[in-house]
């Protein structure tokens, strides 16, 4: 199944470059804590440089890193019919985990 993960950064309206990203779930490499309130998702670079990563930084409730990681993995393991999986959409108020509050995108 071809699955894609959707992210926004909370901009309203979400209409500027890099305000949102949909990335193929197969490009997901790893995820881990960064601080007590942030965790990073690492992807193979969307630009396919082979030398960098696309990083999504999720902001969440303090100390909930492992809970968020579990929730994100559960969401990515899901098999929605349209293959469209929202991980963090602060613009639309939709998150795969109740602990996530925001998202930031880097190295698109």
């Amino acid at each position, binding site marked *: 199944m071809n699955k894609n993960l959707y992210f926004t950064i909370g901009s309203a309206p979400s209409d500027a470059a890099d305000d949102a990203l949909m990335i193929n779930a197969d490009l997901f490499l*790893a*995820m881990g804590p960064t601080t007590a*309130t942030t965790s990073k998702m690492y992807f193979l670079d969307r630009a396919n*440089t082979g*030398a*960098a*990563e*696309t990083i999504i930084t999720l902001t969440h409730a*303090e*100390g909930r890193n492992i809970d968020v990681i579990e929730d994100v993995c559960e969401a990515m393991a899901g098999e929605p019919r349209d293959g469209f999986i929202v991980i963090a959409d602060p613009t639309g108020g939709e998150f795969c985990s109740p602990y996530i509050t925001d998202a930031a995108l880097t190295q698109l």
Partner: protein
Amino acid sequence: MRDNYLYFGIDAAATMAFDNHTTQTLQLTTGSFDSPVPTGTNFIANGGLKVSLTYHSNITFGTYYTQTAGEITVHPNALTYDGTDTITVATAAADTVYGITKSGTGANNDWDVTQLKPYVEGNGYVYNAKHLRGIAVAGSTTTAVNFKAKTGDAVTVDVMTVTHGSAKHKEFAQGLTDVIADDNKVSGMVVVVDDMRSLALPNDAASIASVAATLDT
């Protein structure tokens, strides 16, 4: 095949001892606990760490506590975190159920703060099983598990070196691939080994003990 994600808890739990402590407050430091110390007033309430102390008859305990020997875990309801570095333990007078009042004799008060959840970069990572490159013997009791590096570099890997029972390499590899291939019982994140929470693969036939990481940067 369902998608699986493999978690490696790389760091052991941070701990900080407050022996012969004379106050009801415990101040975490980057040198003794971890760097950085956790932030956010809800860190303890969200299960991020625990506080325990060694029983002494001169310490006054709230009614919740019935243990009269050994190490006693302080109930989170008695703990307040300032969101920066300092934990305050409610006294038994202020909270007659969960509170604890230290002994008047400093030498009777030995507290410990222990990390329960990862929050520092490098504490642990979950890897996409699709990017597992290979598993190889690293030593008599170690197996190297290579993943495509999370940096995205095309020619490097992140290596999780798992320590297990002697000559149990095949058992470890079989256990890991059994998890990856299991469509019926496995979905989402699977803990391969977690040094912080002392967890290992389910049905572990390799006697997994610990993990160390070499990460591409």
